[in-house]
Structures are given as C-alpha cells and as structure tokens.
C-alpha cells in the first residue's frame, strides 16, 4: 500500500507571536512543530505499515525550507520518504490555495492508495484542506476519523466521530481520510530511524517541478480569503475550585479533566 500523509509545520501555540501589521502569525523557525493531528494521521499510516510491511509511507509538507528540521522528526518515526513543497510563490496561500497546491504536488508524485491528513492545523483551524484536496484529486473522502484498521490491501475499516456517536465504515481504496487529534498515541522514534534521520534530506519540490500548475491559483493572489482583522483573545474569566482532602484517585480524575482543556 502506498500511503501519503500531509503534515504541516505549525508554530508551537505556547510560543506564538502575532504580527498585527501583516495580520499573520510570525513564523519563527525555532518555534515550529509538526501539527499534532497530522502526527495522529501518521501514526495510523505507520500502524498499517506494521500490518503490511511492504507498504511505503510518504509525507508531504508545504512550507519554508526551515521546516526541514521538523520533517526529520517524521523520518525518526519511520516514514520512508518525506517531501517538502517549498516555493516563495506559495507564501500567503489560504486553505483553498493550499489544497490546490498540495493536489498538484500529489499528482506529480504518483498514485497513492491512501491519503491521510490531520483534521485541522493548530494555526489555521479551517478543517477544509482535506476535503478540498480530495475534491481536487477526485477521490472519496471521510472526515473526523478516530480509528483506522486495514482489513486487506484494498479495504479499510474506519471509525468516524459524529458528536457523541461513532460510525463505522468500510471503505475501498483509494480514499482520503482526515484524522481527529488525539485519536491514538503517537509512537516513540526508534534509534535506527533517528540515525537515518541524521543525514536524511527531505525531497524538495518547487513549483517548477509541478506540471500543469496554475500559479495564479496559489499564494496571496490565488487565495480566496483574506484576513480582515487579527486580535488576540484575552481570557479573563478564570474560575477556581478548591478540592480539599481529595483521595489520590479523585485527584487523578481532576487532573485528567483539566488536561483535556490544555
């Protein structure tokens, strides 16, 4: 099975800085991280590879060359090849322009049986890239996925979360799935993969290497949305509850509840 996982490098929310002038987030390369939901998507891909070891897992990222260091972390987890679509002309792309650019990159890379994305990125939060990407590629898609199990080389069993319900589907490949954050626990790297990552250079794609791309549909110019205003939201209403003499078990429950919100 050929699996492609789209992984965005986003700014660590703890270190985020806004630029009111450009109405964007400042992209300090030192503060980049791999988007958490995308890592959950990658984990499902790697689990399929555990079941079918002949599978190849690729990742595709779009961003500046500074993303390379974070992309190495994907190789540390066991990705076979990591690809970075990087071109100055892509700067300022909105979700629609991004999906178009990604779809062109995917088409130039070849055929994939399964494309996985995180449901949304920490910085954009639009959740529309995966469905749009599937539309551009003309393949079936499902969103809000919390579990994926391969049935055979052509069929997957997937579980989709809808509000408080879970729906189970059997899907034939090819398909694009977007995975909810925290739907699995991402594995640790292996030493041999980490050693491989030391010298690994992601494959860099520029727009010039993509056939038939319409550069008018990418970047700021090709974007259909613009940000009118960028405001940091101040959370002012803190409430505090004091639990006295709680048992260890109760404290654990409280900690679990709190952790869900951070």
């Amino acid at each position, binding site marked *: 099975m050929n699996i492609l996982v789209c992984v965005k490098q986003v700014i660590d929310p703890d270190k985020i800085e806004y630029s009111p002038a450009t109405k964007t987030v400042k992209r300090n390369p030192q503060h980049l991280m791999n988007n958490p939901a995308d890592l959950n998507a990658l984990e499902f891909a790697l689990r399929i590879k555990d079941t079918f070891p002949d599978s190849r897992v690729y990742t595709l990222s779009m961003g500046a060359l500074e993303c390379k260091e974070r992309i190495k972390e994907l190789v540390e987890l066991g990705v076979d090849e990591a690809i970075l679509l990087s071109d100055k002309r892509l700067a300022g792309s909105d979700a629609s322009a991004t999906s178009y650019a990604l779809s062109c990159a995917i088409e130039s890379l070849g055929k994939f049986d399964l494309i996985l994305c995180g449901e949304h990125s920490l910085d954009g939060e639009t959740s529309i890239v995966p469905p749009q990407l599937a539309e551009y590629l003309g393949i079936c898609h499902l969103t809000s996925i919390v579990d994926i199990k391969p049935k055979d080389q052509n069929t997957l069993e997937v579980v989709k979360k809808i509000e408080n319900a879970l729906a189970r589907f059997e899907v034939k490949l090819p398909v694009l799935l977007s995975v909810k954050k925290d739907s699995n626990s991402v*594995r*640790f*790297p292996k*030493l041999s993969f*980490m*050693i491989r990552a*030391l010298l690994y250079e992601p494959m860099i794609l520029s727009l010039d290497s993509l056939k038939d791309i319409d550069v008018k549909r990418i970047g700021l110019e090709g974007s259909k949305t613009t940000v009118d205003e960028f405001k940091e939201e101040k959370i002012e209403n803190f409430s505090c509850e004091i639990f006295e003499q709680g048992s260890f078990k109760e404290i654990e429950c409280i900690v679990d509840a709190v952790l869900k919100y951070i």
Partner: protein
Amino acid sequence: MDYFLSEEQKVIKRLAKRISDEVISKVAGKYDKEGIFPRDILDLLAYTELTGVYIPKEYGGFGGGVMEMCLVVEELSRNCAGIAVSYAATALGAYPIMLYGTQEQKEKYLTKIAKGEAIAAFALTEADAGSDVSNIKTVAEKNGDFYILNGNKHWITNGGEADIYVVFAVTDKSKGPRGISAFIVEKGYEGFYFGKKEDKMGIRASSTTELVFENCKVPKENLLGREGTGFIIAMKTFDRTRPGVAAMAVGIAQGAYEHALKYAKERVQFGQPLSSFQAIQHMLADMYINIEAARALLYSTCKMIDSGAKDYTKESSACKVFASDVAMKVTIDAVQIMGGNGYVKDYPVEKMMRDAKVTQIFEGANQIQRNIIASEIVKEL
C-alpha cells in the same frame, strides 16, 4: 557543558531523555511505592532499540560501547534509578557473554538481549561473600554433559524477572579464586528456583531476589570461558560496568539538582525566592560543580574503555566512587533545599536520596573501590 559526544551518541541521549521525561517521570513514584517491575518500560526500550546500544552489530545491536550504555542509564536515572537499574543489570549480565562467550553463546544470547527479547542478570554475591567475592560457596560439579549447580545467591538484580543469568560457582575448591567458573543459566532450567524478594530502601522498582540452585542441570556448553576463569570474568566485567553505576549516580544527582533548582526559584520565603539566598545559591553551585565533575570523569572513563585501552580498573572504580558520593551529597542537599517538601513523597527527591545510597554499595562497596584504586596506584609507583 559540551562533552563533544558524537552525533549518534547525542541521538541516544536524546531518545533516552525523552523516554525518561515523558514516560518514566509519570510512573516513577507509583512503581517505587508499589515495587512494580518496569516490564512495560523495558518493552519500550526494546521497541526504541535502546536495549542493544552496547551490543555489537553482528548480534543485532547498535555496536556502541560502555559510553552508549551509560548515556541511556544516566538519562533513565534522572527520573527513576530503579527502572534504570533494571535496564543496567541486563548489561551486567550481557558483558561477561560479550567478553568471554563462544560464537554460539553470543549468537544465542546476545541477539535476544539486543532486541529486548530477553533480559539478563549477574549472580555473584552470596550470604557470606559480598565484598569478599572469592569466598563464594555455590558449587558446580561436572557430570557428563552437564554441570550440577548447588548453592544460593543473594541480592540478585532482575532476579525472577531475567531470562538469562550469568552465575558464578566453585568448580575446584582447592584453587581459591582460580577455582571459580562462570555459567550461563536460563530461567526454567531444572533445579533453578527463586527465593526471597528483597524489600529495599531504594531502587524499589527493580527486583532483587535470592536464587536457589538445587542440583540444577546446566549444559556443559553453557560454561563461560574456561573452568577456573570465573573470578577474572567477574572482575573484567565490573571494570566495564562500574561506569554504569556511576552513570546511574550522575543521573540521580542531575534529577535531584533539577528539582531543587526549580523549587528554589519558585518557593518564596521572607518575600524572596529561595534561590536569592546565598546559602542556597552556594549549595546549588556545589551541586552543579560536583555533577559536572562526576560526569566528566565518567565520560572520559567511558571513552578510555571504548578506545580499546587495556587496563582501566582504577579509572572505572574512581568514577563509580566519585559519582556515587556526589549522588549521595547532592540528593541530601536537594532534600535540604526543599525543606519539609523534600522529606515527603509528594516530591521525587526523597526517593532520589534513597536511590542514591545503593550506588555507594553495589558492584563493590566504595570502601572496596578505594582499596582497588589504592592497590593500582601503589602498583604503578
């Protein structure tokens, strides 16, 4: 401080640190309190391939040496020395096989150890033979294709949990230390049982038990080296594994220092953080100086051993003594800096102080190490 580790060594340290901080720190208190053997963590170390860092490539390992082993032990010990020692004791059991095993023994046992499919142990100590190693009473008598082992071993780390035991027994009583031999004994061999499990002060996540041999049949091909070389095998193994105890000590000290430093910056008394008082600052400075000195001695000893040097007994003993004394001092000071909170189990430093103590005792108590160092330096005169 930059220790000029190779890129690969930095990767090993980074991976072990991640496991230590993200997994071990969360379970250390519970495993210590309940004496839980860290099988799950050993499985994770196996998955991440850290179990094989010191094992040659031809047996499925990473091909590193004592340095690589120590980097893992140090990082794991920053959060739980009990868990770290469960890992390190396998190295203590693997080294005699690496140093003296036949090709068949190495292939059979080291490949499993490297993959984390088997854990190992080293069984020398007995009730009447602690520091006085040559006084062991366990005997091995040759009978056809087998050696028959009889006797008891005490204080065996990974006892009951390990799959492979390197056991020392007397094959010729008349020859003193030259009459001791080493054997590879597998869990499940006829006549091999586990006795009392120790209820310890520290490193409580590790298992320490008695081993009982009652007419235990060990195939003759499981003799390690030649008959009568057991004492040498034990000593040469210790030369390579004492830095592991030093690494454990450096890790414990580093962990305690980090907790104390953070606490000193946060805890306010007399309107100021503790870290602004000179009495506390000097303690923190001494901790830092001692830990860095211990680590420097440890890493240079590891480099010396891995370079293929012939004799490093005194260096190996010196780093064990120095680092374990540092761990004891640093953890006591960390408890002091944290006051009452240092003395209760809500914070990890009281555990670190208990854990540190054993580094001055096992793999040769520090008094014995000083004897060894002294005899080496006097010999050199």
